[in-house]
């Protein structure tokens, strides 16, 4: 009885969805995020429905499966404009031209009322890599540290970039569905504390496609605002009608008043004479201007900008580029033979 009452109240909450964006789907995803009835969450642990928008890349399929299995029960997936995986036999299907809102609302209510069955895991409950019993304690490394016992790299001491102190370094993969990174981008990072020691492109960002400049810009500014802990302003940005000059001007004023530009350190991620703050300022100024060009940098590599940066600085640098420029700055790298997948959200 109490659970039914709880479910009835919960059904009236905005539907928490996590969106796995496919190539060319930024525009429709932006429209979805603008709905007050849907809460696009930045963490799969908060989501009840995983929306797969557009055809996922072949190489992202395993990461998508892992993402799905991290979602708490009761849960469902909605495949928007693409065919579901074979294992997703009870998934919701939405055609590319339909608004998924009504279907999501019905499915959400059915999940909470326990009328619809929660989706089972798509992957077996096994370690993704075999156990490698090496080292004094069978963990695979030296002493009590290091190694990759189940394909998961453990911390191991290495010289710090800044002062040469030997500190624990830890490597893991982030992306291609990490909400603070552009869709598709996956990075293998070596960290000491929260300082990035080295970076490697595991998957390049998705090409946004033609005609998505406005959607890209507002999504990027939205992500930057999220990184600056301005979540509500980010949601306003993601939903602002870009052809409404007054609304866009009011948004720009609010962003300026929040100190968002000044919060980004001067000189951070400088390339071709422009730093992250400059690029962000330009991006905000170009909101609603479909003709505005992107930064169009003269070249360089994203991975060269990241070493030495603290985690949140690195996220700010990555998101300060337009999607199109990031595609140029983060090309696909040749994968080493022993490629590791870690915390692939």
């Amino acid at each position, binding site marked *: 009885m109490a*659970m039914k009452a*709880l*479910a009835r*109240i*919960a059904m*009236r*909450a*905005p539907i*928490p969805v996590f969106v796995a964006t496919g190539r060319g789907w930024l525009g429709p995803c932006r429209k979805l995020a603008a709905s*007050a009835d849907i809460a696009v969450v*930045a*963490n799969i*642990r*908060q989501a*009840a429905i995983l929306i797969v928008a557009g055809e996922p890349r072949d190489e992202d399929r395993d990461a998508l499966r892992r993402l799905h299995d*991290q979602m*708490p*029960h*009761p849960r469902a997936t909605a495949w928007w404009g693409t065919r579901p995986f074979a294992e997703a036999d009870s998934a919701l299907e939405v055609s590319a031209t339909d608004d998924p809102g009504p279907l999501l609302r019905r499915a959400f209510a059915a999940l*909470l009322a326990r009328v619809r069955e929660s989706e089972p895991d798509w992957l077996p409950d096994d370690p993704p890599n075999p156990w490698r019993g090496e080292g004094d304690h069978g963990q695979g490394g030296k002493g009590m540290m290091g190694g990759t016992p189940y394909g998961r790299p453990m911390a191991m001491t290495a010289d710090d970039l800044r002062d040469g102190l030997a500190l624990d370094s*830890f490597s*893991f993969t982030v992306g291609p569905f*990490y*909400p*603070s990174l552009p869709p598709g981008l996956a990075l293998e990072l070596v*960290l000491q*504390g*929260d300082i990035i020691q080295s970076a490697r492109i595991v998957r390049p960002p998705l090409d946004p496609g033609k005609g998505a400049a406005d959607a890209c810009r507002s999504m990027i500014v939205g992500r930057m*605002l*999220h*990184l*600056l*802990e*301005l*979540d*509500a*302003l980010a*949601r*306003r940005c993601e*939903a*602002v009608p870009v052809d409404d000059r007054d609304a866009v001007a009011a948004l720009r004023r*609010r962003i300026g*008043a*929040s*100190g*968002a530009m*000044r*919060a*980004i*350190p001067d000189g951070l991620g400088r390339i071709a004479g422009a730093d992250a703050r400059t690029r962000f300022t330009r991006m905000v100024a170009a909101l609603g201007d479909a003709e505005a060009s992107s930064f169009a940098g003269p070249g360089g590599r994203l991975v060269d900008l990241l070493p030495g940066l*603290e*985690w*949140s*600085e690195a*996220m*700010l640098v990555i998101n300060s580029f337009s999607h199109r420029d990031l595609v140029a700055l983060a090309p696909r790298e040749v994968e080493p033979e022993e490629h590791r997948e*870690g*915390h692939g*959200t």
Partner: protein
Amino acid sequence: MTALIAVLLLLAAGIWFGATADAVAEAAVAGHPVRAALTSPFRRAALMLSRQAIATEHPDRLNRLLAPACYLVLAAAGLSVIPFAPGMAVTDIATGLVLWGACEALVVVVVFLNGWSANAPLPLIGGYRYVAIGLPAMLISMFVLIGAALPAQSLGVGAVVESQRVLINAVRQPLGLPLFLLLGLSITLRGPFDYGDSADLAGGTHAEASGAHRLLWRAAKLAMLTAFSAMAATVFLGGYLGTVLPGPAWLVLKTALVMLVLVAITHLVARVPPARMLTWLWTVLLPLSFVDLVWAGLEAMR
């Protein structure tokens, strides 16, 4: 007994009020309907209770439960030294400010444990990062609170309230309240001082939390927001002092005012990267808290 009931009621009401104020501010800034936001805390809480509380692989189960529980207890302990009226406090001790300071310091431990217990990289980074920022923020609070204790010549919270009968500390020591509010943002992991549970870490120390566990952590943070606001209202705005209305009503009103200010800052002010904040804390804010202490000392000697 009356004071204990008052503390529990204030905590419960504060959690509801903080969640509602957050939802309304969020909707107003995001451009969503504000009316729907008024009841959204109940819907969100019901939704969290309806979802599975996932545990990561090999979490530190004891600390996973202890972290939010201790956070709640620290909020209640901090609130226990605050008088609702003359002599009406759960823990009416002569060293109330010291007890509050201990609660503040232990928040650093609790947030770190929350990040540690998940056994996952992003929560752990959030935990370590919070320790780096939280410790200097505590130092600022200590200096500011000592400054507030000087006119009272006592570390008792009741004596600090009584010392404001002529002039409240917010006016007498103009740097004190703004500096103390920064600590409030820090120990409640909010907005420009949210370095533990931040968006760049997908939620930081609670990135892996879901269901009831997530709700408990959120409630604990709101409880600490209530306790902190009540302390700020007591030490800098005269607490229960006021005319016409009874003392407890004044305390509640002033607490709500401080909560609203903190909620507004949360949604309107950007956060700087941690390295920059750390520099500001040691080179600007900590020296400012010294200035506040010197100011308070000179004022007390007049």
